[in-house]
Every structure is written in C-alpha cells, then in structure tokens.
C-alpha cells in the first residue's frame, strides 16, 4: 500500500525538491568560479566584457524561467514577455540616465559666475538627454526619473499593471491558444512601434544609453561594477528559481498544469481559470521586468528594437530547446542558446568554405537556430532538460503496475498487496 500520499508532507520544502538544491548549488559554484577568475575581483582570467556577457546571460535565464512558468506550466504561449523585460530596462535606465546627466550638468554649471537655479539645471539635463530627438523639455513620463526608489517601484509596477490589464482583457474574453499568442505579439509590436517614435518621450530609436555608468560611482572601475552586477544577477536568478519552484510545487502547480492540459475540465472543478492565468501572467511579467532591470545596466544601452516581437520569439525558442515544463530546462536552454548565439554572431565561429559558397555564421546562425528549433520540437519535445529524465529513469525505472514476475500471468502488484 502506498503510504506516501496518505500523509501530509513533513519534510521541509527544500528537501522535497532536490532539483532546486542542485540548481542553487551549481549556480553558487559557477558564481564563485567566475568571481575568482574575473578581472575585477579575482585573478583576471575572465575579461570584464565577458563577465558582463555572463551576467546578462543570467538575466536571460531569469526571464526564461518566467517564460517556462507561463508557457511550460500554465500553457499560455505568450510572445510578449520580452516587452516586460524591456519595460523593466527602460524604467531603471531613465533613472540612470537622469541621475548621471544631472551630475554632469551641475558640475559644468558650477563654474558659472552665478549659482544655477533649479530650472536652469532641469533645462540643462533635458536638453542633454533629448537633444538627439530635437526636444529640450521633459515629457511627463519622466516625472519620477529623478527618484531612484520611484523608478525602482516602476520596474515592478508598470509591467505588472500592463500585464494585469492586458491579461484581464484577454483571459476574460477567453482568448486562448494561438490567438492569445498573436495578441501578445501585437502588444509587444505596438509598444515597440510607439517607442520608435521620437515624440514617445523615451528618445525614439536612440533609446537610452550610457547605462553602464552608474551615477556618482565614476571612480569605481567597470571591472568591479561588472562583477557586482554579476553577483546581483546570480542572486536574482537564484531567488527567482526558489520562488518559482515554490509556486509550482504544491497544489497551485497542480492547478496550473491542469489548466494547461484541460482548461474546461478545471472550470468544472470549480476553479476560476481566468484568475489563475491572470496571476501567472502578471507574476511572470514582474519576474521578466526585474530581469530586464538587471540586464540593461550591464548591456549599457536599450532601444526599442529590444522589445520587437522577434525577441520574445527567441525567448520561446530558448525555453523549447531547453525543455518546457522544467524550470532548470528553461535556464539551460537560455544559457546554452544565448551563449552560443554570442559566439556565432560575435564572429568567433570559423567560417565554413564549401568552395562555391562560404557559410558565414553571423548570417547562418539564425538558420541553424531555426533548424534546431524544428528538430527539437519534432524529435525531442522535452528538450535538453529531457536528457536528465533519461538518466533518472534509467536509474530507477517506474515499474508500478507491471507484473511482478517475468511469466505471463505473474502476480501483479495490486494482487500481491491484497
């Protein structure tokens, strides 16, 4: 008789999910190794720019985690989560740009014969920031840009609210499947097109730049800043992994997986499917936004192209290749594919000369990625994460319900118990 299900789980949460402990262990080890090898902290084998690449990759892993929760677990193929990632980046970028420009303007006006008025400083900052789009006044959207806490709140609140309103409208009308994907894609396209305009108030296609220079910290070298951001990204990814594991571990996870598999049936069980979807959609949008807020100071620049629909499609590809429905699968997929992509598109991959034609990986990488995506979808739907299943199943195959002996008519488990 099975005792496991008959008693409430007594072990602490972490002990019941060994995958989570393993993941946190590997992440900690990775962070330690990179720190020791990094230029800004350790012996300097890893260059500052590569530390930044690794830090950015951790942020991408975090947004992949969000995508896996919303798609792999809840079955909502959102093609708009990179929009939330981008909004998070813009929100933090506005403060970074404002605060740094403020320091520059104040110091340049300090030599003037008369002390500058606040209006003069504000005008100076505005013309510095908006000169490129031919404006010299602050648009209303920058009202809180002077305040770090407020912009930090905006990182969470703006994408959260957008996801809440969008999700409420979409889920309430019971838009599902491919139609929902199209709708989310339309949302991110509309947002990108809006931001491309010069009068959007966010510097049009120039985007926000110089984000790697933290205001007031000019004396600290980039090598140190890069490793601190790397630590912050690792910490955020670790926390996000723990929270996501907790969300999917209990009955909530059971409900959202049930929604993924048969939405109508869940409704007849008395669960408000819309409320659950809205919760997951908003929650993952916030995770994506936090990841974005950590990503862009490392990237240094954000522009509307980052929000374009293709970014969200890449996100879905990472998760599919890594393995949907497994948190670590999403992380592996994002890390593997985005690092590989950096390698191929960075011009480091050797060209292949076929005589008549040379394969230049900068151009051909997307084709390779597309082919691998199709191949994974058809031949290995469980993705890279599925390899771990193969290993664990080989070690302890589940023979419950099988005959106990080799002969036909051997006693079955059920009969033996009686």
């Amino acid at each position: 008789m099975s005792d496991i299900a008959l008693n409430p789980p007594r072990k602490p949460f972490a002990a019941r999910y060994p995958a989570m402990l393993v993941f946190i262990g590997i992440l900690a080890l990775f962070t330690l190794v990179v720190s020791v090898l990094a230029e800004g902290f350790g012996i300097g084998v890893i260059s500052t720019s590569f530390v930044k690449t690794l830090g950015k990759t951790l942020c991408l892993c975090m947004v992949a985690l969000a995508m896996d929760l919303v798609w792999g677990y809840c079955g909502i193929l959102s093609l708009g989560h990179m929009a939330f990632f981008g909004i998070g980046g813009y929100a933090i970028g506005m403060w970074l740009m404002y605060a740094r420009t403020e320091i520059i303007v104040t110091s340049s006006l300090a030599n003037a014969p008369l002390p500058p008025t606040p209006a003069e400083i504000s005008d100076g900052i505005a013309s510095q920031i908006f000169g490129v789009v031919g404006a010299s006044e602050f648009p209303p959207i920058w009202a809180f840009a002077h305040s770090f806490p407020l912009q930090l709140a905006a990182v969470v609140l703006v994408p959260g609210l957008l996801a809440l309103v969008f999700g409420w409208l979409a889920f309430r009308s019971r838009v599902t499947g491919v139609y929902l994907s199209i709708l989310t894609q339309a949302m991110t396209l509309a947002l990108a097109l809006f931001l491309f305009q010069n009068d959007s108030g966010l510097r049009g296609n120039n985007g926000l730049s110089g984000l790697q220079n933290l205001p007031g910290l000019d004396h600290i070298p980039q090598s140190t800043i890069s490793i601190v951001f790397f630590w912050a990204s690792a910490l955020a990814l670790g926390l996000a992994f723990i929270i996501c594991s907790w969300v999917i571990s209990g009955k909530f996870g059971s409900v959202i997986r049930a929604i993924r598999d048969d939405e109508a049936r869940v409704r007849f069980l008395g669960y408000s499917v819309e409320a659950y979807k809205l919760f997951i959609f908003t929650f993952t949008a916030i995770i994506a936004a936090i990841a974005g807020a950590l990503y862009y100071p490392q990237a240094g620049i954000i522009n509307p192209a980052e929000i374009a629909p293709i970014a969200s499609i890449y996100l879905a590809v990472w998760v599919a290749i890594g393995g949907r429905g497994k948190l670590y699968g999403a992380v592996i997929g994002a890390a593997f594919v985005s690092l590989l992509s950096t390698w191929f598109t960075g011009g480091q991959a050797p060209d292949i000369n076929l005589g008549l034609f040379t394969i230049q990986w900068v151009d051909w990488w997307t084709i390779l990625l597309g082919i691998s995506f199709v191949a994974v979808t058809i031949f290995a739907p469980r993705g890279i994460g599925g390899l771990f299943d193969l290993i664990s199943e080989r070690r302890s195959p589940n023979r419950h319900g099988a005959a106990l002996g080799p002969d036909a008519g051997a006693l079955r488990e059920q009969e033996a118990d009686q």
Partner: protein
Amino acid sequence: MSTLLEVSGVSVSFDGFKAINNLAFKIGPAEMRAVIGPNGAGKTTFMDIITGKTKPDEGRVLWGEKSVSLLSMNESRIAQAGVGRKFQRPTVFEDQTVAENLMLALKNDRSPFAVLGFRPKQHDCDKVAEIAEQIGLLTQLERKSGELSHGQKQWLEIGMLLSQDPKLLLVDEPAAGMSPAEREHTTELLVEAAKTRAVVVVEHDMEFVRRLNCRVTVLHEGSVLAEGSLDHVTSDERVIEVYLGR
C-alpha cells in the same frame, strides 16, 4: 419533497436547430435519475446548460433551497455551488498522479491565493485515501493517471466528483467501454452516492439503467417525452416509437 434543481421552460437553438425545446426537469436533494434518449435528443446540451457551458435562449434554471438562478453564474461558480460533472470521455489530468487528481478536486478554497499557500492536512489526505479506497484505486495513488486503464480512469473521474462533494452529480455515460464487472462496481458507486446527493445519469445502455433502479426521464427532440419507472416508460407507446424502435 423539496427540490434541489428545477429547470423550466428552457429552450436553446444552435443556428436555427432547436437542441432543447421548452424543457422542464426537477430533481430532489437525494435522488437518482436516469436520463435516456436517442442521439441528438439534447442530453449533453441539457448538462451543458446546467453547468453553465451553454446559455439558454429562454427559461429558468433554479438551484437549491434559496432558488438562485444558475444562469447568471459562470462554470466555476456553478461548480463551487455544488454541481459536479463527469464527461462522456474520461477527462482526468493524465500528467498528474491519481493522488494529485483527487487532491485537485477535493473540496477546499479555490481562490488562487488560498491555493498558493495550501498544504494538505491530515484530514485532506485521509479523505483522498477514503475516496481512493471507494473507487478501488488505493494502490494506484502514486501512478500517473494517464497510465490507468479506461475503466480506472472512469472511476478516477467519479472519485474526483465525489471528492468535490457536490450536491448534484451529472454523470455522462459512466459505463461506456467497461467490462461487466467494472459496470457492477460503477453501479454500486453511483447508488451509494445517490443516498446523500442527487445523481443524474445519462446513459444509452438499458441494462445499466435497469440496475440503477430509479426514475427515468426520456428526452426526445429537446423536451421530456416521458418520465417514471423504467417499466413505465418502456411501455409508453411514444417511447417505443422514437427510442426503442420496436
């Protein structure tokens, strides 16, 4: 006798085709009822209307002692009010274990935040074990429900209905595809359930209906053709004409 569910004057049409036509139906709080009828008689649409999947064009669906209308509620609210439904094709969550399926259906607060913090208590586990025992799946609790046989899935779904603890069970063809022994067990489960709650069984199989030994409602072209004991309705001239075809 008090009434649990009262359907009156309900009509619904799909693209001009009247699937349900001025239907009236009543059931008490602890009663078994079999609904029979030829294909296209509106049996499934009838269940769709009660569970909120389909909104009728006209008519009333009143529920419980306070006679609240079910028509203004959505599917999940109706289910929370105490209507459980079993589909014709067994629909269990195949990717989850038998225990998870039962725990999912177990009567508890269903709002997202309550579920997020939910951890099963001893009495929840006892209830799951008790129901698993009833449906003969106690030894299968840890198995993925997708691995179960067809009959076991049907039972699991009945078990999920029971753990929902509804006041009214709507059961669509519970015995389809079952062996005689499995049918026997299913009959027992339903008869047992009907002692404390209302059970409506839609069934084609006359032999199965006879074993349920309950009042029978015959549907034809979306309205009630006859109602009474099985012997009564099978001797009705019109029933013989449209349904039994003999």
